[in-house]
């Protein structure tokens, strides 16, 4: 505080110097040893004042800055750290998530902790009265959710409505009616708002996060399966019951204005009482009242959702509603058009022309489309992904229109756009378009529209798979370093795509690194990924140093199979993996381990491949050990493989073997020829 006071004093001192000059020398007038401040922007002005002798000094207005301006400036200096997990996950190192599943539970855990604390504080406010913060911090204090007014009055009713106590409000309303008090129109309307919005059910207690997650997931599932009706049933589980409190109170109200009707219609549509909503609209018209734009939006939705009608009829009904809007001079808004487009998606092929016309209409009357608008268009035009030949090119128009623009949230579905745009890019296999979409995402603050976690993962998985498919491998690897893990955690399929890209570009030397990464991102037990890695490593011969690296990687993968054995009851060793690992050991000169692998074949009742046996033979020849060679022939014999004979022949030709060994060989081959007939069917390698 002392320093603060001093600073003020200094300011004063210098000011006083100037104002007093000319009159008389003030106490500090001869104090040129005052602190010197650099950066004097107003020098010319003051000098002029000096020359002309005008004593009035124009004091520049103090600039007031937003309280977060400094922080915003600082925040903009921080870039994403490509080597670390996102900031939101930075915590105790032990807790930092390494896979998308973990990151999701991390966020959920964090949020539910917050919610639990809030719940405790709010349900026991009397224990949390101590206010230790100076100055007072309101958001840390308990909120009061219990009504404070005890008597029966309209004020009490208003308080209950404000606290969103559905049942208490209805009770209070009834008590007021019984007492003979008339409730004002305004209060009744807000009571109707409450009842209609929540469908005459108590709003769920403050776990918005969970709730929204749930509905999103349902939505996601519905979108993937294109099962819209199911979604409707699930998401609006809270259906409108006939004769509910809202309808009762609506009937009891002595006077009703258009707001009463409108909120009823909106409530009915929200809770899927579509027929009632349309009927109520007729009633509203009969009473010579007017609906507002929100009600029309709800009615459009109701028309589109109503069952047992052909798309053509529905579309005509929607047009009829729009004409009524125009006649009643109701101005349509963004939601009007978004609702139409959203509903047109359900008409599939029929919806395309109307959708385009609707879109042009909204542009023509100066309503700027939001991201959700484009999302609906994309969904409508790229509904059937399998028809690649006749796929629409509307995405190019959309992207041309959007590139370089910045968005602000205007529709609850705005965060779906990037996901669906990237889906189209991936389906069209157009890398340039994908870069364009990604560029748009990185314009300004648009990245905030990527949506919740699963949508971001979807977007980046598609984007990265496309990169793997189409981009040069060096660029792909650059993106790999850039995006993973600081933006998203790869799924195993993403990694397989990358492996295939590496294969195409002949950059197999990166594989051990990819395996290390995939272990880190929680794919240690993904057998499809492991098989792919092993297959790629074992397919061709490589320079020795690379073979050593591959063998190390193979040993690591082998250990995961073994630890999996301990973890799970069913040990699953695919024959391919056994083959590949053995080959890799052989090629790296780790003969001992390779021989151990041969033992595993027996243990897991799998059959070694011909190629593998030949390679073993090569290795035996290289070390000129006939014993090993015979061992191989024996092994082939125990599996009754047809290759046994060839191997035996090779042993005879290539090795100097003793008489006994020769005899042993002879026995082996005769054995196999006997059992050949029944083993033919069983072996496929």
């Amino acid at each position, binding site marked *: 505080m002392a320093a603060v006071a001093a600073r*003020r004093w200094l*300011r004063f001192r210098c*000011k*006083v110097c*100037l*104002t007093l*000059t000319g009159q008389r020398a003030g*106490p500090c007038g001869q104090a*040129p040893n*005052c602190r*010197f*401040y650099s950066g*004097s*922007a*107003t020098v010319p002005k003051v000098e002029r004042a000096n020359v002309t002798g005008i004593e009035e000094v124009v004091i520049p*207005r*103090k600039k007031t800055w937003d*309280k977060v301006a*400094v*922080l*915003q400036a600082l*925040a*903009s200096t*921080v870039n994403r750290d490509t080597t670390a997990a*996102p*900031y939101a996950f930075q915590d105790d190192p032990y807790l930092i998530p390494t896979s998308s599943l973990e990151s999701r539970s991390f*966020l959920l855990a964090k949020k539910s902790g917050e919610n639990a604390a809030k719940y405790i504080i709010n349900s026991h406010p009397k224990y949390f009265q101590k206010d230790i913060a100076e100055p007072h*911090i309101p*958001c840390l204090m308990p909120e009061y959710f219990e009504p404070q007014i005890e008597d029966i009055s309209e004020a009490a009713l208003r308080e209950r409505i404000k606290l969103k106590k559905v049942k208490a409000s209805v009770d209070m309303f009834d008590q007021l009616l019984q007492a003979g008090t008339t409730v004002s129109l305004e209060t009744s309307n807000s009571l109707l*708002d409450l009842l209609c919005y929540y469908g005459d059910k108590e709003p769920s207690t403050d776990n918005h996060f969970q709730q929204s997650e749930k509905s999103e997931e349902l939505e996601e599932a519905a979108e993937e399966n294109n099962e819209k009706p199911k979604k409707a049933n699930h998401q609006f589980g809270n259906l409108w019951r006939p004769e509910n409190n809202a309808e009762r109170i609506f009937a009891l109200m002595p006077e009703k204005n258009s707001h009463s009707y409108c*909120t009823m219609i909106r409530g009915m549509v929200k809770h899927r009482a579509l027929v009632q909503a349309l009927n109520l609209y007729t009633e509203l018209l009969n009473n010579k009242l007017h609906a507002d734009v929100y009600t029309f939006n709800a009615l459009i939705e109701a028309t589109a959702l109503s069952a047992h009608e052909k798309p053509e009829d529905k579309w005509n009904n929607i*047009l009829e509603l729009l004409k009524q809007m*125009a006649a009643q*001079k109701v101005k349509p808004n963004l939601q009007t058009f978004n609702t139409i487009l959203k509903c047109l998606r359900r008409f599939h092929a029929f919806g395309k022309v109307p959708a*385009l016309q*609707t879109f*042009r*209409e909204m*542009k023509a*009357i*100066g*309503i700027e489309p939001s991201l959700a608008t484009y999302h609906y268009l994309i969904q409508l035009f790229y509904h059937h992904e399998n028809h690649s030949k006749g796929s629409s090119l509307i995405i190019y*128009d*959309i992207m041309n*229109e959007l590139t370089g623009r910045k968005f602000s949230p205007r*529709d609850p579905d705005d965060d779906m756009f990037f996901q669906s745009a990237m889906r189209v890019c991936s389906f*069209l*296999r*157009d890398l340039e378009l994908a*870069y364009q979409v*990604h560029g748009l995402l990185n314009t300004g*603050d648009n990245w905030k529209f*990527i949506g919740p976690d699963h949508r971001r993962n979807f977007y980046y998985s598609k984007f990265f798979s496309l990169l793997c498919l189409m981009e*040069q491998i060096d*660029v792909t690897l650059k993106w790999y370093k850039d995006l993973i893990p600081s933006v998203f955690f790869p799924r195993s399929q993403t990694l397989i795509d990358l492996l*295939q890209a590496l294969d*195409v*570009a*002949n950059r197999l030397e990166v594989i051990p690194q990819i395996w290390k990464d995939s272990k880190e991102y929680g794919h240690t037990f993904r057998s499809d990924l492991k098989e792919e890695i092993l297959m790629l490593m074992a397919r*061709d011969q490589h320079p020795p140093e690379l073979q050593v690296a591959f063998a190390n990687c193979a040993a690591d993968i082998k250990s995961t199979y073994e630890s999996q054995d301990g973890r799970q009851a069913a040990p699953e060793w695919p024959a391919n993996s056994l083959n590949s690992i053995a080959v890799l050991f052989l090629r790296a000169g780790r003969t001992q381990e390779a021989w151990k692998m041969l033992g595993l074949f027996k243990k897991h009742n799998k059959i070694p491949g011909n190629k593998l046996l030949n390679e073993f033979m090569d290795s035996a020849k290289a070390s000129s050990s006939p014993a090993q060679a015979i061992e191989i022939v024996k092994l082939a014999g125990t599996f009754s493989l047809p290759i046994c004979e060839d191997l035996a022949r090779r042993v005879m030709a290539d090795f100097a073997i003793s008489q006994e060994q020769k005899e042993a060989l002879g026995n082996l081959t005769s054995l196999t020829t006997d059992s050949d007939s029944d083993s033919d069917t069983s072996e496929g390698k």
Partner: protein
Amino acid sequence: MVWAARNALLIPVVAGTKNNVQRNFGTNSVNYSKKDEQSAPTHGISKETESQESVKENTKKDLLDIIKGMKIELSTVNVQTTKPSSRRQRKSVEATIGSLQKTLEDAPKKRTKSVSPELEAAASAVADFLRFDKQTTKSELLRQLQQHEEVSKTQKDGERTKISVSNIISDMKVAKSATGRVSTRPVHQIQFDEGTDSLMGQKTDDLKKSLRKNMLKGKRLNIFYLKTVTEEAPKTETAPSLWDVEFAKQLAMVNEQPLQNGFAEMIQWTKEGKLWEFPIDNEAGFDDDGSEFHEHVFLDKHLKDFPKQGPIRHFMELVTCGLSKNPYLSVKQKIEHIEWFRNYFNEKQDILKESGIRLN
């Protein structure tokens, strides 16, 4: 001299906040431009693949594609003719086509000075392979070769010719894209080739970019008119209903994202009121009806009613001096304080007269 010093003293104080702020502004703009740059490379990556500067990189890949495609089909003669071009690639490329080279071990290693006969052979081989309008392809290739021959003769370093060869071969790839190709590449690669090929055929660049009608423009519904929509309706002031409030909440959730850095978290805390507000100065939480510091500091103007000189004046100047240093009082309180002295001296006028001091 004194004046200058005083000016120098005053100006920084006045400009102090401003400069500070400007500096912040400065960093701000720099940061924004940095951000732009940061986003630029993402474009850059895409550009790079097309740009002619990085032809080497690009064509290397194209060349590899071609060579891979050829692996099986080519006869020994063709393989020999392709060899020089592949030999000239960098080491890494050699590694990538190692398997191909293995079969070429006995091919002539010495490269002739003039590349044209080899290239001609290569061109015809490639044209053979493409089976797509053999003659045109070949002649096109040869024409290009002739063009480049000049260059390769003047600059005998292999680098230059390498680029030209790569160019040619990459060009060939474009020319053949319409034909179906027999390839031995992994399955997904084949799929992708076919996919792009069919798409390419469908949206030849002209169609895609310029000639095609913009689907977002054209006939509309013609129900609403700009005039009726834009004209201001009489707006009745009503409190936002529950619907509006909840919709606003939904909208706010749309672009809610996990925080990106510690400063973003501090911004959030500031907005929630949990954090001391920046910039941290002596005015935080100090609401003085919007009065500014000069009103706090320059209190001389309130001394007009006091004598111009003498002990009262002297006393009052000391009072204002003291007040201007006091950070705890509001402007109103300071003025009230001065008022109090004025009343006090007015009340004591007779005593002052006795002592020979004039108040006015």
